[in-house]
């Protein structure tokens, strides 16, 4: 199946629309059909909302899944948080008939039903299925750079349910990055969480996670970092500004994967809205691409 319900979530359309733009552009360039899912709510957030009430989290996720089932298409997410929520909620319900009955009893109030007959994919998985070789064959702007790939947490774990890649030694995103020309670096703390979950609790408490990551990537010789989640993106892109105020000076451009893919496919800095990044990618692109 090559036709998806695009689940945009909250952070991308309402704060980081350039990630939505680059994602739409590359999907269209690769001939992947999609339609944004109408009527969907927050996925909801697998940390905050689940932490407040596991059941409320499950009910709301089930409604979003039911909406996509009515469309009859697999869900494609751009955010790893949405991916984890929708994929794990589906699995939890399918494994527990009593819980599924309870949730469907509640969904009846709004004339909906969860059946579990569609799957949930992250856009990185959808692109991997297109195939790194096919992507490589479409590149017009190969990029020479050393890239620190950051997978983040919610794309990989819990691996038994998400099934995206080996959680200890994931390769898919590295392979997709290298298909565009760069070299993916080994670096310390490659598997470190971005710390975004701390943001609505105590923002300053997430700085150590950002700092460790950026230090380690820079030390390994990274020219830029590639992420697969808008929360990780925001942590490292906007986080660099905040750390600067604390006296830590980093200048590491951060790309969401479809932005780097978009550049390689020939889309421009302007079309991709790269000027909206808080940490400038301009010097990097002038050196590497122009």
């Amino acid at each position, binding site marked *: 199946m090559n036709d998806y319900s695009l689940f945009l979530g909250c952070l991308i359309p309402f704060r980081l*629309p350039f990630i939505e733009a680059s994602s739409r552009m590359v999907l269209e360039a690769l001939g992947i059909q999609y339609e944004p899912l109408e009527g969907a709510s927050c996925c909801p957030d697998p940390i905050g909302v689940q932490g407040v*009430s596991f059941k*409320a989290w499950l009910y709301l996720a089930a409604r979003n899944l039911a909406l996509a089932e009515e469309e009859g298409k697999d869900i494609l997410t751009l955010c790893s948080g949405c991916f984890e929520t929708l994929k794990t909620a589906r699995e939890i319900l399918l494994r527990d008939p009593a819980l599924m009955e309870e949730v469907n009893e509640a969904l009846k109030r709004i004339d909906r039903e969860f059946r579990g007959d569609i799957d949930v994919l992250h856009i990185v998985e959808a692109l991997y299925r297109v195939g790194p070789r096919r992507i490589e064959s479409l590149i017009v702007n190969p990029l020479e750079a050393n890239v620190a790939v950051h997978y983040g947490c919610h794309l990989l774990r819990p691996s038994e349910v998400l099934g995206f890649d080996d959680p200890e030694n994931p390769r898919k995103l590295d392979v997709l990055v290298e298909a565009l020309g760069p070299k993916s670096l080994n670096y310390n703390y490659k598997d470190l969480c971005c710390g975004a979950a701390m943001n609505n609790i105590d923002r300053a408490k997430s700085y150590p996670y950002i700092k460790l990551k950026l230090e380690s990537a820079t030390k390994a010789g990274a020219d830029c970092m590639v992420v697969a989640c808008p929360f990780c993106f925001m942590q490292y892109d906007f986080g660099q500004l905040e750390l600067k105020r604390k006296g830590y000076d980093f200048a590491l451009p951060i790309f969401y994967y479809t932005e780097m893919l978009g550049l390689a496919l020939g889309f421009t800095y302007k079309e991709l*809205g790269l000027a909206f990044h808080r940490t400038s990618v301009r010097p990097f692109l002038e050196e590497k691409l122009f």
Partner: protein
Amino acid sequence: MKLQSISSFRHRVSCFPEGGVSLKYCMQCSLCSSKCPVARVVESFSPRRIVCDALLGLEDEVVFKDGVWSCLSCHSCLEACPMNVKVSYLITFFKNLAVERGDVPEGVVEEVKQIFKTGRTLSLSSAVEKRRASLSLPPPPSVNVDEVRALLKEFVNVLGGEREG
């Protein structure tokens, strides 16, 4: 009396649908703590100790706001556990219990209130609206908020941030 409260707390944990029953398999090997990114940064945080306190039925120790809310839910602990204890989901359950006691960070309450109000965690600012237009993006899909509220009506006290007691 004490023993009874231990078993009643452990029984409540075991009823949690995602991994509640896995608590009893913990053998305190500490692989969860060794893989925990929070433990790398926050010295006092230890998933192993949270699980240990739960095994001992020490509800007040377990459901301690600054403890459970430090967890990033990254699932590194769950992935590391050789006994398949779903540590991160146990901590989620302890967060749920903390919320029942009113021990919930303000930012989390705000996030959930926002979802109840608009169906989403964020709304569209005029600056982002302009950015979307400059990127030739259509308006974001709409949400049927009435449906969201009708579905979540039994959680209104928790989700509205109203506290018990």
